[in-house]
């Protein structure tokens, strides 16, 4: 009997696979993930908070009431102006008060979040790239390579991250000439935080890779002789990205806090480019003399940022976990 | 006429989801007589396992029994409190699942699990229960039972484990055993042994079996009657020999033709086009109508009701309209 599906004399137009049927946006809006986001009020609020903080930071040069780093707009005599009042010597209005140098706290927070987010995001991306690559290599190859990478990971995970960051920071300081230390400080900070956070990524990705490489779609590609690097990038990587996204979000929150801690300890960003951590360090000097706002507002911003990002990470973990669906 | 052991009346199981309510089992009714073996056969998604789970009240939330009654020995059990239902499970109804590893706790010795189950349901002392447990293991064909009873589940092979599960299901002397794909995970040469043990022991204890499986071969060997399920509904129910030799519903006859056989070396197998609809897209009218070779206009609009076509035989198909059985047979003849 003839195969009824055998193709003969059909115009090409009827046989070609159309380019795209459903747009990406339509698909995303219809997805289970979006549904679980929409139905979780906590997550929606967390998203809005995180989003507005990020916007505030990114747009700081345009929306901040004052430029706190422009000496021309500052008056030292405005120092310690309480919140929601006008300065004593200028007409500047300070919604969140002014610090000891007469800088508007709201503006310093906006500029400070900018530095915090910049360092946090880049450090996390760096840690993610490093950890995911090492995890993929270890999980796919196994054997000695795997053993070496995983032992390094174990050692890394047995130190507190902040200790590793301090160590790397110290070494980098020693290697960089004094004249460039100021300008390199942010990059050294990103390197230090990144290197202290990659191990989580490596460990998770290695586990997921070991599961995926056993699957038959990988076998099918291997039978065709697809190069192992292409198999890793095209087949395995997209399928291990779920957990990476979860850890990425949570470790972004951790990186922001870690940066704040380092800056609080005085080893982070230079005072000319204060981050939220620097602001908190400055503020805590005045806490017991009654000028609470210099500490309070930056600290609340840091908490709001870390908490909202963490909540997003938590939701993402549940939404991507098939067992909890 | 004897009273049925189990009566299922208009049972409907629903799963509310964000895209609407999915009906996994729709309006099914059947009886199981004492000591009888009823086979429930169907392909994945037919609702056969769900039916068994609904009788045991083991449906995971958010699934729920939306309608219907389950009557065990004259007593309605679908609305009993959970504590009462737990007493019925094990004591009145035993369970055998596909994967023996999921029914046995890997952390406890076989003896502990058997003795605990026996003592939960029967007023026996520890030593009496142990004696009974050894006896049961011996009955299901585990060699050297008095020694092996203290082994852990992982020390048994797949077939031996399933024997232990059978012993566990039978230890309180239930009147009904619900076996969900009991041989699917086993090798062919072991399947026959397990079916044999299950059938023999249930017959000796007078227990009826509800055998849920996708394997027509197992049904043919084991069951007295068979219910063929499709898309959550019973397509056809009747004595196993009649259904296999002369299936009336187009789905069951298609299913029989699709099974490759040793005897006949055919060039092509009979194939039913298409596949079982998803629960979210069950067609209007008869659920089988898009795949049916005898489809009529009526099938696309109205859902057929089960009609008695012969003693003990019911079919839900418009080829057998409710009013008159004889014209239906004639119609079917002309359709072929």
């Amino acid at each position, binding site marked *: 009997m003839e195969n009824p599906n055998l193709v003969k004399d*059909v115009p090409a137009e009827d*046989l070609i*696979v159309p380019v795209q049927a459903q747009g990406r946006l339509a698909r995303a809006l219809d997805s289970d993930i979006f549904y679980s986001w929409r139905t979780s009020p906590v997550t929606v609020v967390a998203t809005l908070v995180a989003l507005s903080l990020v916007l505030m930071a990114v747009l700081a040069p345009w929306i901040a009431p004052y430029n706190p780093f422009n000496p021309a707009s500052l008056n030292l005599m405005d120092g310690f102006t309480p919140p929601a009042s006008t300065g004593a010597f200028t007409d500047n209005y300070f919604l969140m008060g002014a610090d000891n140098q007469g800088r508007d706290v709201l503006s310093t927070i906006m500029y400070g979040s900018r530095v915090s987010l910049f360092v946090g995001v880049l450090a996390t991306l760096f840690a993610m790239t490093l950890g995911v690559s090492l995890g993929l290599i270890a999980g796919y190859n196994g054997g000695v390579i795997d053993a070496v990478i995983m032992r390094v990971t174990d050692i890394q995970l047995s130190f507190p991250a902040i200790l590793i960051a301090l160590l790397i920071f110290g070494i980098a300081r020693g290697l960089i000439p004094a004249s460039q230390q100021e300008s390199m400080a942010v990059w050294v900070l990103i390197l230090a935080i990144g290197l202290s956070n990659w191990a989580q990524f490596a460990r998770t990705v290695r586990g997921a890779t070991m599961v995926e490489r056993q699957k*038959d779609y990988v076998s099918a590609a291997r*039978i065709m002789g697809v190069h192992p690097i292409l198999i890793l990038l095209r087949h395995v990587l997209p399928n291990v990205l779920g957990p990476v996204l979860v850890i990425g979000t949570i470790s972004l929150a951790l990186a922001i806090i870690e940066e704040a801690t380092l800056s609080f300890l005085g080893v982070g960003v230079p005072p000319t480019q204060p981050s939220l951590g620097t602001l908190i360090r400055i503020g805590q000097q005045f806490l017991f003399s009654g000028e609470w706002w210099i500490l309070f507002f930056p600290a609340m911003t840091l908490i709001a940022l870390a908490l909202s990002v963490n909540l997003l990470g938590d939701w993402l973990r549940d939404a991507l976990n098939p067992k909890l669906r | 006429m004897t009273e049925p052991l189990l009566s299922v009346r208009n049972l409907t199981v629903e799963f509310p989801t964000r895209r609407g309510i999915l009906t996994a089992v729709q309006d099914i009714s059947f009886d199981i007589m004492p000591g009888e073996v009823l086979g429930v056969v169907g392909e994945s998604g037919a609702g056969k396992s769900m039916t068994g789970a609904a009788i045991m009240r083991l449906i995971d939330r958010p699934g729920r029994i939306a309608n219907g009654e389950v009557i065990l020995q004259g007593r309605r059990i679908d609305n009993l409190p959970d504590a009462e239902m737990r007493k019925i499970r094990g004591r009145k109804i035993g369970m055998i699942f596909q994967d023996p590893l999921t029914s046995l706790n890997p952390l406890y010795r076989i003896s502990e699990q058997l003795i605990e189950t026996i003592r939960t349901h029967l007023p026996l002392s520890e030593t009496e229960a142990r004696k009974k447990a050894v006896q049961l293991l011996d009955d299901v064909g585990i060699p050297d039972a008095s020694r092996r009873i203290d082994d852990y589940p992982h020390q048994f092979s797949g077939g031996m484990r399933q024997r232990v599960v059978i012993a566990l299901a039978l230890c309180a002397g239930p009147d009904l055993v619900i076996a969900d794909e009991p041989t699917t995970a086993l090798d062919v040469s072991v399947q*026959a042994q397990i079916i044999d043990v299950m059938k023999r022991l249930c017959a000796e204890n007078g227990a009826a079996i509800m055998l849920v499986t*996708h394997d027509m071969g197992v049904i043919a060997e084991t069951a007295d009657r068979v219910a063929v399920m499709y898309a959550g509904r019973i397509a056809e129910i009747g004595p196993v*020999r009649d259904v296999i030799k002369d299936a009336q519903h187009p789905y069951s006859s298609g299913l029989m033709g699709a099974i490759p056989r*040793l005897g006949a070396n055919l060039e092509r197998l009979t*194939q039913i086009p298409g596949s079982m609809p998803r629960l979210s897209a069950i067609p209007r009218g008869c659920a089988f109508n898009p795949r049916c070779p005898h489809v009529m206009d009526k099938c696309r609009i109205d859902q057929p009701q089960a009609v008695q076509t012969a003693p003990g035989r019911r079919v839900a198909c418009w080829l057998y309209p409710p009013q008159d059985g004889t014209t239906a047979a004639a119609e079917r003849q002309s359709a072929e």
Partner: protein
Amino acid sequence: MTKTLLDVRGLSRRFDVSQPWLNRKIEGTGKLYVNAVDDVSFTVKQGETFALVGESGSGKSTIARLIVGLLAPSKGDIVFDGTSLKDGLKGAKARALRRRFQMIFQDPLASLNPRWRVVDIVAEPLRVFERGMSNRDQRLRVGELLTLVGLAPEDGVKFPHQFSGGQRQRIAIARALAANPDFIVCDEPTSALDVSVQAQILNLMKDLQKDFGLTYVFISHNLQVVRHMANDIGVLYLGRLAEVAEAGALFDAPKHPYTRMLLDAVPDIEMTGRRRKQVEGEIPSPIDPPSGCAFHPRCPFANDRCKRDVPKVINGVACHAVEEGRIG
């Protein structure tokens, strides 16, 4: 006389299942190996179907993976169309050979990348073997292939999870056919499918074999399915061949006691009243197989020689009792 396409000679594969090094040193245990496949030889003729049947632990899936090169043999050789695959495949010659063979897997969901659209999945062999093929030509070819296996070109834009099990297996078949292979290893292609869908897939595979002159190595535990598909059959037990024969001969007059037992264990769907024969015992663990003929503890004809010596395949049967004429 049809040409031999695949020649498997004395194929063996050993797996290291030892404890980790530290555990071995502490517990004082040695290395532990499993002979998953042991000295298996058979030939596959062009345009025909050779089936390997066996229960769990028989090594049938290992043989499939050895043939397509996912595993390397410990001993023996695989000769494909005159070329030995023993020393691995490298370079241009490898590409030319690789495009000629393909594999279809048991679980169609696991064999399709869940993050890829069907069009990309089916076009993967084209990207590997037809470098430089334009995107439009690829989509045209994929549409053609999807139509060929009973799907529609529009299905190409969907993802694997949007299909039923049978449709997914059709997609896997379309991918296997994309680069015009002539040899396909099918590892339990229908055992994850329902009966009515299994019939569709088996019919499709037979049609394709006829239309494109395909050669199949068909691996299954289901004797009825094998009966329907195969020209020649090899019966495996614990990594060794028990019997190799032409399909009709094997089913009409099985020789090896294990083959007989398997046939007796097939459920009686015809309801002829034939009872399944009670089979004694279960398959032993491949880690610690019985001495001599691995089947001897379950064999009604076993004698001392069976416990001692491993039987050789003589006239397609590896059995001392058949060799000595004790059973006919």
